[in-house]
């Protein structure tokens, strides 16, 4: 265990605390109790209060005892996240097929530096299989782009 809190874990506890506060504030604007029965805001209010309390306790714990896990490089996960974000953003304008194909190709060939021919082949194969299963077999309406896929 390291003696100081890891930045990532502090961020995690803060996300939970903020989530709890947002729920408390929002549920206070809803009906809480009417007659005998709890209303729409009752449970969310309690969940928010409890979550904020628990996240606060975790934060105090982190400052008192530090994190069990130390920091590690986050460059590559951030690159993968950026590629995924670009892939999701491209689904509506470009269509599901091209976006998934490009996402896979970028991850294989650029991020992982795998051989380009193999990358092209696996990216195209995976995209085709996904379209065949979800669109052709299961009849799911996946977003299409100018290429019709």
């Amino acid at each position, binding site marked *: 265990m390291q003696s100081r809190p890891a930045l990532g874990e502090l961020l995690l506890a803060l996300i939970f605390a903020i989530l709890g506060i947002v729920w408390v504030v929002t549920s206070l604007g809803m009906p809480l109790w009417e007659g005998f*029965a709890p209303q729409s805001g009752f449970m969310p209010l309690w969940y928010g209060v409890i*979550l904020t309390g628990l996240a606060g306790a975790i934060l105090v714990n982190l400052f008192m005892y530090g994190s069990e896990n130390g920091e590690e490089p986050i460059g590559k996960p951030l690159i993968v996240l950026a590629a995924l974000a670009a892939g999701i953003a491209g689904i509506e304008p470009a269509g599901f097929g091209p976006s998934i194909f490009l996402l*896979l190709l970028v991850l294989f060939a650029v991020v992982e530096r795998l051989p380009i021919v193999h990358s092209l082949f696996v990216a195209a194969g995976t995209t085709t299989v996904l379209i065949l299963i979800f669109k052709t077999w299961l009849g799911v309406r996946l977003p299409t782009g100018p290429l019709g896929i």
Partner: protein
Amino acid sequence: MGPFDDLIQGFIAAATPMNLLMCFAGVLLGQIIGVLPGIGPSAAIALLLPLTYGASPTGAIIMFAGLYYGAQYGGTLTSVLINVPGESSSVMTSIDGYKMAQQGRGGVALGIAAIGSFIAGTIGTLGLMLLAPPLANIALAFGPPEYCALVLLGLTALAAVGGSILKGLATGVAGLLLGTVGIDPQVGVARFDYGQLWLLDGVDFIVLTVALFGMGEVLASCRTAAAEPILNVGRVLPTRDEWRQARMAILRGSGIGFLIGCLPAAGATIASFVSYIVEKKVAKDPSRFGHGAIEGVAGPEASNNAASAGAMVPMFALGVPGSNTTAVMLGALIMFGLRPGPEMFTTNSSLVWAVIASMYIGNAILLIMNLPLAGLFARLLKVRYSWIYPPILAICLTGVISHANNVEDAWLMFAFGVLGWLMKRYDWSAAPMVLGLVLGPLFENTLRQSLTLSHGSGTIFFLRPISALLIVAAVSAITIPLLVNFIRQRRTLAGA
């Protein structure tokens, strides 16, 4: 005629070439459906319903039953191999199953899951055959306070079996909190949608699960993808020692799964959570759990399979669905002009017994198919991780988009994926969050119904014996480990 005579008649009806084919098709389709995130067995049955309009009701229900328990095993494959549970009932399997795969024991994990599923499925079917009418009556004794207490027990016990109780509780409450997004089921008012139409349906289980488990794992592991060692597949059949460790877990899981499956609306998810918790509690060395304990795979797997049989009890005996899937099957029975309920065993006994007999056959098909296939599936682990994680991300994305057909869910998956990565990185358990989301609506509904019934008094939970017992168990699940820790720390300090 006794149940065994009825069963023989059922076997005669189920063993026709057409019904055998329907059973095989159901099991096979179920496995494929279970592997794909986003398409659950209930959605698959709904999709297949139009195809069975011309078929006999017996054949169609046999296929749907096969699909139901086939999907339970399909979810296991992705849980063990890539840490993406295809179904909510496979979440617990992924904890130790994936660790076993990382240790080169992926084949054994899948093998014991197949064997456990077969044994549990057979025990569950036997239970369905012998105990359906009396158990259906006991299940009726569960009112809103008992369900509420049962969910509370599941959440607190699960929070307590993770590494840190505080973090486990926080993620569990966060799951409950996310479960309040969308339309309030009691009064029909929109909550926490912030003006976004796509949030009216709430946060979907599949979005959260795929993000926390699938994306979280990918982001945590991609950093070392090129250097990740190529894992050994290992053997499929367990050794004598492994079998000795797993056999009681399978038996306990079968009993737990069947009993919980009988409760309407409880189903395989709660069954697998409870089974995992029980296995950890009875283990001589609980610290092995979460690090590749075979009981952590055998128990939940047996449990979720037995729950599939248990869920048929209220469906056949009461006309009340035990799970989402049996709700769709119930709709199918009505579509075929049948009336589910207590008279099913008299007016349509040939159909009921043919389905029960087909479940024995289906479980045998599942075992025969999966023992050789387990090794084949586990060979996926021999592929370098650099080639595996991009398709995992693509499958996660496709599953999420296909589920509700909107890209907004993909963005939600992205956000939860970042959260899952941090949780994985700092050892915050994701399972309580998923359980909280899945059970949140049931918990809120039953709590509000209970308080309405008691005119706002919380004493209702303590005046009813079953709910009082469950609440005491829930409180104990949190306080006992805390107390033990406290005493241990005091002793250590005193010793120093």
